[in-house]
């Protein structure tokens, strides 16, 4: 990671480029730096946008100049060249796969020459790193989808996809945080709200967290959904060292 570049993005922002590839090591480093910045409360910083392999920083030029900000960020980036020495959180996301909950699971199965059961097994057998959030409030870009279940997007996107839908779009998988149009192949639904504006913390997941999809049957889906509606559901989180 020698090729870190810090460049201006206009007069009120700078962009730190950590390389030009999507990998877990680079992304963990970005997560670590964002945590460091939150701890240090750097003067003049207004907001941050961590992405796959870059970190954008909005700052107030009335308080700090580009050169000063660039120097501070150079120092911060050097401070932690290992990266990823933080805590690891894995969120269990219960998913009711197939049927009316996942109308496209048949398409995903036939595209990969698999049975629906195999698709569910493959999708729920690994933990997915949240590389970044974007597109919609709480929308997580996940990495590491098994190639056997990569499936092209719908030729004709749906006008409305319900919040909680779990789907596959090309080589990506994810959860729709709110009702939205979209072209992903839908394989299931989670009763967990990844975005709830009425909750004290509206967004459940952060970049750097992991997601583990856990298959549940319809009865369990309904049970959890009731708890969620009453505000009594606690997401199961596994914590550990990296």
């Amino acid at each position, binding site marked *: 990671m020698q090729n870190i570049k810090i*460049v*201006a*993005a*206009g*007069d*009120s*922002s700078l*962009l730190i*480029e950590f390389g*030009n*590839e*999507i990998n877990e090591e680079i992304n963990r480093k970005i997560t670590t730096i*964002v945590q460091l910045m939150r701890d240090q409360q750097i003067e003049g910083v*207004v*907001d*941050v*946008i*961590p*992405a*796959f*392999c*870059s*970190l*954008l920083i*909005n700052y107030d*030029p*009335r308080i700090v*100049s*580009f*050169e000063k900000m660039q120097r501070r960020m150079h120092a911060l980036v050097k401070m932690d060249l290992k990266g990823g020495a933080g805590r690891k959180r894995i969120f269990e996301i219960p998913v009711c796969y197939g049927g009316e909950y996942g109308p496209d699971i048949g398409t995903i199965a036939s595209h990969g020459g698999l049975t629906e059961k195999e698709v569910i097994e493959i999708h729920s057998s690994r933990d997915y790193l949240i590389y*970044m*959030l*974007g*597109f*919609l*409030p*709480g*929308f997580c*870009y996940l990495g590491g989808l098994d190639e056997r279940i990569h499936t092209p997007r719908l030729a004709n996107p749906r006008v409305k996809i319900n919040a909680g839908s779990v789907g596959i779009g090309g080589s990506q998988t994810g959860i729709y*945080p*709110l009702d939205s149009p979209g072209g992903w192949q839908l394989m299931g639904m989670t009763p967990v709200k990844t975005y709830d*504006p009425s909750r004290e913390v*509206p*967004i459940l997941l*952060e*970049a750097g967290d992991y997601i583990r999809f856990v298959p549940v049957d319809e009865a369990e889906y309904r049970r959890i959904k009731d708890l969620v509606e009453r505000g009594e559901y606690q997401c199961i989180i596994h914590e550990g060292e990296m």
Partner: protein
Amino acid sequence: MGIRILKGGMLTTVQDLGRTGYQSQGFGVSGVMDVRSFRIANLLLDNPENEAVLEFTLIGPTLEFTATSIIAITGGDFQPTINGEPAPMYTAIYMKKGDILKFGSARTGTRGYVAFSGYLGIPVVMGSRCTNLKSHLGGFKGRKLEAGDYINFRIKRPYLPFFLSRTLDLDEFDQEEATLRVVMGPQEDRFSKQGIKTFLNSEYVVTSDFDRMGCRLDGPFIAPKETSDIISDGIVFGSIQVPSHGKPIILLADRQTTGGYAKIATVASVDIPKLVQRKTDHRIRFQAISVQEAQKLYMDEVKELDRMRKKIHQPCREVLECRLAAKRITRLFTS
């Protein structure tokens, strides 16, 4: 007591400087499009610098006041009237209960602003009162204003010192072309030398694809070296992205937080108002400046606003010009 919306206009929303601090969770910033006009409107009333205002687009709203308030109108000329009489802009105006403030269509510019000394009774959501239309968040029920909506004032503030001094020169919005100063990058290296030359030496035209989210321009093809697709990264107010069709798209207040097209340059903050006040078919040129120059321009504008603040806090010259003073004082007493 506050304002009742009699007509919503084309797109009238509650805005401030935007909802920052949540972009890492995917929340866009939103906020006003023309920051300068916004700042001047609040400045005229001694409001806090981030106090919420109404922003309207192309066709303005009609408002009925159900309480006394002082207001200031800035931005494009929407031919405002109070009870049918032309209303001054860039001036503190005393509004009484029952007064009707009516905006027409934009004679110059595209966006107008009105600030209130009583402060709009809009709840703060995640640190801001601004409306995020896409996420249906903040502002008035997360949406644009419509006839029948009612907004209370948070406080009574029917008096401001140096009232007659509270008038400033009008900003001009009638130009049909603008040169936007830009800081190159962050991905100028994705474009060929010829591509950058084209970008900086050509005239581009504002298309009808122009809303709070962004402005698409039409003009000569800006060639990338290979592809203009990048691994998605953060976007700022004024990012100029160039997808493979080679035409610039300038991202504005309602931009998404991240995007996957290379950004050839970023518009200097002080020049964004020049763009957002233009109309379809107006012409745009780009001029490269350094980040240091852009930050100096930013600070120069801060100083200019400070001078305006000083000016409106001095005893009024006009008091000597009896007729003008009499005209403005009359409004305080007639109903």
